[in-house]
């Protein structure tokens, strides 16, 4: 085994009185990609921040973090400043906010070089151009004078990577570098990172919750849980033989397939006929038509009662716009949307009689509840759609029934939302949707923010609810594997149009449209090894 570049031994971390890391040990050799994985709260990001010396102020560390022959924990702040950016580069999760909005991209890349006084200004400018070119932002197409807001998320992440590698650090830390990106962009960024590691001989410590990415990228895997390393080993060996039950649980949950009941015989519930949705562009000239952007183009489909429909596509493809149109939140410019034969939008206002037959569950389990209301009030919100909402005992019974259906207890009705975890909140969101027994539920990225084990439980819950309530739903997601497991039929959207439609298994196993093929090819897949062998 080669001399290790980074070696963390017996690292413990406490923030306040709260133990965050307990005896973590791992190492990264030059040219090696080590992935640290685990669910939220496992301490994987804190491990990365410990290496950078960017922990919160009250953090107390013990143990050793050696980079080459220096112990980073023993260095003072000035010495760490000299190491950050020069010997260790770091790439973050959220490219949309990781760049300073008021400075040009070249300026920000140059800063890494200049702050370490590594080169004269002219040489630094040339180096900045060179690395921007290397990360796929050539100066002729992406002038260095661009500002971050003029770039897409993937392009911004390339700038962040350029900043991190400008001084050719020995170690690159990437904390969920592709979690916020679309699958095709994710594949490109992962390729770029792999290429950089190979070219520069850097070691890379990659933090990610996505096991498919881990399996695809890493030479070695470190699995963490509650601040401890539960299992570590070379990727191939670990995938072939998982020893720790938690590791097995993680992998099983990531490929979790739910058992959907068969849909009832087809009878149309929702009809979307030739729908187009335009947005006005900002007016450029005073007396000229400002023009429109067509976010949804001539979309038609029929959703049968009891059917589970998937809607997939990358950000900006129009799936959220289509969702809003179906919910009757916005008028459409062409075509019509009928639920049970009734239009969702009549004249200039949404049709309330139809509106009450639909509910929606959103992505963010933290932002979609009013923190000052009790659960009972939160989940009975849809009652305002009814002409004669249940009162008194009937109301309490409805609340208890909805909570029971999503696996919570009726006593939870009196609690506030902050008392619940992310997965429980998503259950409450589903209870809120279920309480008026809607004909149709829209799940808008409803499991995307959840850990894999929680996600698996929520997906199982969906299947149970399908059996119990004959749910009809549209499941909107960018995550192909999830859509594959919980839908009967799938629509693939690109640039406002539906490019492919068909039974889910057929579309995934034999995609016809090139875009569908590209999407499926770009999505990282877990190899079938290991899971199930005990």
């Amino acid at each position, binding site marked *: 085994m080669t001399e290790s570049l980074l070696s963390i031994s017996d690292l413990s971390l406490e923030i306040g009185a709260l133990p965050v890391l307990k005896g973590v040990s791992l190492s990264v050799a030059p040219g090696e990609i080590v992935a640290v994985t685990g669910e939220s709260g496992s301490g994987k990001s804190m491990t990365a921040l410990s290496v950078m010396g960017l922990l919160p102020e009250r953090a107390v560390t013990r143990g050793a973090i050696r980079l080459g022959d220096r112990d980073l924990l023993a260095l003072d*702040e000035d010495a760490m400043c000299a190491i950050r*950016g020069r010997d260790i580069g770091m790439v973050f999760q959220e490219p949309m906010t990781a760049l300073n909005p008021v400075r040009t991209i070249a300026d920000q890349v140059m800063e890494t070089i200049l702050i370490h006084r590594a080169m004269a200004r002219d040489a630094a400018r040339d180096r900045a151009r060179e690395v921007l070119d290397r990360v796929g932002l050539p100066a002729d197409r992406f002038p260095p004078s661009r500002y971050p807001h003029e770039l897409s998320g993937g392009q911004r992440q390339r700038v962040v990577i350029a900043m991190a590698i400008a001084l050719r650090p020995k170690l690159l830390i990437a904390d969920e570098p592709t979690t916020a990106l679309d699958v095709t962009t994710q594949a490109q960024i992962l390729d770029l990172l792999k290429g950089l590691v190979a070219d520069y001989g850097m070691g890379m410590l990659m933090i990610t919750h996505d096991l498919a990415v881990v399996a695809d990228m890493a030479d070695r895997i470190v699995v963490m849980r509650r601040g401890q390393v539960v299992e570590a080993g070379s990727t191939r060996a670990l995938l072939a033989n998982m020893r720790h039950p938690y590791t097995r649980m993680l992998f099983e949950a990531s490929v979790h397939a739910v058992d959907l009941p068969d849909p009832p015989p087809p009878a149309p519930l929702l009809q979307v006929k030739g729908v187009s949705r335009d947005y006005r562009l900002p007016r*450029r000239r005073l007396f000229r038509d400002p023009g429109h952007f067509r976010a949804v183009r001539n979309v038609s489909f029929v959703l049968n009662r009891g059917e589970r429909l998937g809607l997939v596509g990358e950000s900006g493809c129009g799936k959220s716009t289509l969702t809003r149109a179906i919910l009757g939140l916005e008028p459409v410019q062409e075509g019509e949307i009928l639920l049970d034969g009734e239009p969702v939008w009549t004249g200039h206002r949404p049709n309330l009689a139809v509106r009450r037959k639909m509910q929606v569950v959103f992505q963010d389990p933290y932002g979609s509840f009013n923190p000052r209301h009790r659960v009972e009030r939160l989940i009975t919100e849809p009652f305002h759609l009814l002409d004669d909402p249940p009162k008194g005992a009937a109301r309490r019974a409805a609340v208890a029934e909805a909570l029971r259906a999503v696996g919570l207890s009726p006593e939870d009705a009196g609690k506030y939302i902050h008392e619940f975890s992310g997965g429980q909140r998503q259950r409450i969101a589903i209870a809120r949707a279920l309480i008026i027994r809607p004909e149709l539920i829209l799940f808008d990225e409803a499991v995307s923010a959840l850990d894999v084990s929680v996600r698996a439980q929520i997906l199982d819950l969906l299947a149970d609810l399908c059996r119990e309530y004959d749910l009809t739903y549209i499941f909107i997601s960018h995550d192909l594997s999830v859509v594959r497991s919980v839908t009967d039929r799938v629509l693939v959207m690109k640039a406002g149009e539906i490019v492919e439609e068909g039974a889910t298994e057929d579309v995934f196993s034999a995609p016809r449209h090139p875009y569908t093929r590209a999407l499926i090819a770009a999505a990282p897949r877990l190899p079938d090894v290991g899971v199930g062998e005990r």
Partner: protein
Amino acid sequence: MLRYSLKRLASLIVSLAVASLVIFSVVEVAPGDPARFMLGINAQPDTVAALRAELGLDVPKWQRYLDWVGGMATGDFGTSYTYRTPVAQMVADRLWVSLPLALYALMLSTLIAFPAGIFAAARRGRPADAAVMGVTQLGIAIPNFWFAMMLVLIFAIKLRLFGAGGFAGWDKGAWAAMKSLTLPAVALALPQAAILARVMRSALLDVLGEDYMRTARAKGLSRRQALWRHGVRNALIPVLTIIGLQFSFLLAGSIIIEQVFYLPGLGRLVFQAISSRDLIVVESVVMLLVFAVIVVNFLVDLAYAAVDPRLRSRT
């Protein structure tokens, strides 16, 4: 940037036109006939009519509006009903006191607030931060006329460093004039500085929590370098907004301080004009102040765009 500036300029012109109409109508509906007021209760009707004609009060309203606006545009503000002197001259004299005073106070307030706000934000939660917050709380709470009187007591009466009041006049030299404006400027500046320092601090604290500050630290910038290079400029937008509001206030709202220091400023002129129904003076001064506020807003808009490239590209 050019297109953005032109758009802001167009909006400035429209605002001015609307403001002039509003001011003219409001003053017109105010009760009290200036001619009758000037001549006293016992005046003969034909004398009043003659004076009305002389003052130009007998022509149709729309024509008076056009005359007024046209006059303002060419520097002719009309003649004061009570003093019988050109309004332009009166206003100009007062403006030479109020404008330097406002700029002086604004400069002092900015010079105090920026370092104080940045200092406090950089030491969030520590004793230094608490001290700055305490002092600014006091600065907001103390009434500025009381503070002004304390300044007079200490610096003028005890130490005899400054005059107790009055304005030396610019013909005595810039130094003497500035000296007589110093105590009033300090009295005006401190409460404003206290507010501005708090705004600066909280804007900066917001920015310090942004992802790009962490990115900057990951590049090897020290806490202080990250604060100065990436923090301050991003925190400027709310601070600029407040500075714009404060300047408008300082220009017209300093009447109490003018009274305490016996300064012949715009605030006192408006006060006197209102009490004597000198509508033409009121109109002119109010229009001038509105003009100043709108121009300051225009400048603040340009400053936003200079600070934030996202505003430049949004046409």
